[in-house]
């Protein structure tokens, strides 16, 4: 008997579907969404609070999957993203698209029925904002893609707050504004030390289009604005002194690192880009710490 080698398609592993949701990015989304929910003045039933955070996570995962489906060709050309499931050939793009749409739709419907339709509507807008406005429209067209696209990552605390209170007030809008203003220096610090990757695939990131000097100036501008903006929740009476001191110290350090990057001369061959990497690393810690301070302030105020 002759052995005939069957030819068929190897199905994608469940871990690849999980990887499509960008779990590391999702952790920041879950954290800021949870902080928005916990910092809100009205409580929410723990099960409904858990469901709200789950929906935010599912929505972020769905949007991330749609982003990877659309950008598969670009991801294949960049070292940082070449091993993602679609460019690495471990997953069919159509499966990724369907998975992303299913997660996005399910997250909005579940949020609507379980928590509230205002929170569900904002969640739907945030998914559309990231998957369509940022990924499809802005990112390949303008070097200011991060400025407007950064709004997508700013939605979670707003959604968390609205899930708890059922209304949009000034405080969650300020939380949105803080992340919105934090995003450009965070991403441009990264773009400065991976700009060759972006240039290779034709993404018009600011360092590629406007040059390093302009990017460094922009990092300083946004970081200067971030300092007073991060203090506004305290200034309007929405938080106490714990948040104010934390925000002042954290944003002050952020600005100091940003100034070091901003006032630096053009990087040359073999530059390790240490200040840029330090700013990027601090920016991640900054957001976690700032929102943790917000929740700690709220809890200690309630206890006191």
């Amino acid at each position: 008997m002759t052995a005939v080698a069957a030819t068929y398609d190897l199905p994608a592993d469940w871990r690849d579907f999980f990887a499509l949701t960008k779990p590391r990015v999702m952790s920041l989304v879950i954290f800021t969404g949870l902080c928005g929910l916990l910092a809100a003045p009205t409580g929410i039933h723990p099960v409904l609070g858990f469901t709200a955070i789950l929906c935010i996570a599912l929505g972020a995962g769905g949007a991330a999957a749609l982003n990877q489906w659309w950008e598969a060709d670009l991801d294949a050309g960049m070292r940082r993203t070449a091993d993602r499931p679609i460019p690495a050939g471990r997953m069919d793009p159509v499966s990724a698209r369907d998975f992303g749409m299913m997660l996005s739709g399910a997250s909005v419907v579940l949020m609507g029925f379980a928590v509230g339709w205002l929170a569900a509507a904002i969640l739907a807008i945030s998914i559309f904002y990231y998957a369509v406005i940022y990924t499809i429209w802005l990112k390949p067209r303008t070097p200011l893609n991060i400025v407007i696209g950064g709004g997508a990552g700013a939605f979670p605390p707003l959604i968390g707050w609205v899930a708890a209170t059922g209304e949009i007030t000034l405080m969650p809008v300020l939380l949105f504004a803080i992340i919105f203003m934090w995003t450009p220096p965070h991403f441009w610090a990264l773009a400065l030390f991976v700009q060759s990757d972006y240039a290779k695939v034709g993404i018009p990131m600011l360092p590629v289009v406007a040059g390093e000097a302009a990017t460094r100036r922009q990092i300083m501008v946004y970081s200067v604005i971030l300092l007073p903006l991060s203090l506004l929740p305290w200034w309007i009476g929405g938080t106490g002194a714990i948040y104010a001191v934390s925000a002042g110290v954290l944003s002050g350090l952020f600005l100091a690192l940003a100034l070091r990057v901003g006032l630096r001369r053009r990087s040359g061959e073999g530059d390790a880009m240490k200040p840029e990497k330090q700013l990027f690393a601090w920016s991640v810690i900054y957001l976690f710490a700032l929102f943790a301070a917000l929740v700690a302030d709220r809890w200690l105020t309630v206890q006191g």
Partner: protein
Amino acid sequence: MMTMNGPDESQAERIRRQRNIVMALLLAAFVVLVFAISIARMS
């Protein structure tokens, strides 16, 4: 999606089995969640 030959058939079978288990667990979790949401909204 990769095109594989005979010797990888067992690997494909293993991947499918794992996916089915994960899907079953997710469905079970969804049922529990809907039950818990119903109780929470009624209380």
